């Protein structure tokens, strides 16, 4: 199941500054998704670009619900 693998990938990146450094300064969304997929694959995770897009969209929504009053 790609969602579980994606969640593990997120935890792995959050626990590793070197992995964060590979992704944190990419501002273009398409380039970021491409790099995140490549990094995930290199680390042995299996998730899709759709998983990433869904997670980003959920984050945007949560941000609006939490902070925009």
């Amino acid at each position, binding site marked *: 199941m790609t969602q579980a693998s994606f969640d593990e990938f*997120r935890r792995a*990146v*959050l*626990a*590793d*500054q070197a992995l*964060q*450094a590979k*992704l*944190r*300064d*990419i*501002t*273009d*969304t398409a380039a*970021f*998704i491409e790099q*995140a997929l490549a990094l995930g694959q290199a680390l042995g995770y299996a998730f899709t670009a759709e998983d*990433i897009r869904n*997670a*980003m969209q959920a*984050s*945007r929504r949560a*941000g609006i619900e*939490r*902070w925009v009053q």
Partner: protein
Amino acid sequence: MGAVNIAQLADWTPARISWERSAPVLHWCCLGRERFVEPFFEQTISKRLRVPFNLLFQHATPLDALVELQAVDPGLPPTGFIFHMSRCGSTLAAQLLAALPQNIVISEAGPVDALLRCGLHAPSISRAQQIAWLQALLSAYARPHHGEKHFYVKFDSWHTLALPLIQEAFPTVPWIFLYRDPVQVLVSHQRQRGAQMVPGQLPAEWLGLEALPAGAASLDEYCARVLERICNAASQHLNDRVRLISYHQLPAAVWTEIATHCGVEYSAADCAAMHETAHFDAKNPSLTFAPDTENKESVASADLRRLADARLLPVYTALEARRKLQKARAGAQA
């Protein structure tokens, strides 16, 4: 939120605090290579929260993560604190300091405000806990990710009401109080009302104002009352670590009196960089700075002047007297 791995917070900055069932939750943001150079903290955070990395990896922790982080990765001790009455050049002062790469400057950070006013959300939080979290929060902001040497905090104007707590948390940090002729500040708020000057935006009990019946006072009257509380709070807590600075002393005071007061020396290149930054509008750096004192004085109505005299002239006069005394003493010691 799961167990917190403090090591994973090395490159993360406290961005916002939310309240979940009366417990504070700290939301983190990765700044990457960014420094806090925008006029206000929230502008930098908002910009960074939109980048893909933060959308995907932003996370939250309990506030105690700050205390754990402080123990393993402490920041610089604060170099100076900026307090102010609003619309008096405080953003200019902060922007000049932020223009230098050796400075970390945090301007009116939401998490600082949330902690200073946390009693409203959770009265059970003890003063000792509040102080510990505040010390740890500023320590997190003060980590020198780019080799910085100095750390400044510009507080929100209403934080003069929290001076006793801030001074207890940071008893040795030099601070300044920036102020301006009250008529000019009132005109500024007439043109663009600060949120804190709208009844109900800040709880009356926190401001120490009696709650007024709806419609009992004009917005200008309410604004004058809030400014009176802010200035009186500063005036009542002046100590040997404060330097009073009037708007008309800016921008030069930033690289002269304020620098000396905070124990910092600037090179000629630093002063030139700050001088150059002062040519631009502090709140909107894409615009050139335009002096507005004469204009504000010319448009102030007789009613506004009466309001300023009734509510603010006494404290303004006292601040001016104390400022001139400080200046005379500093001159005698030079």
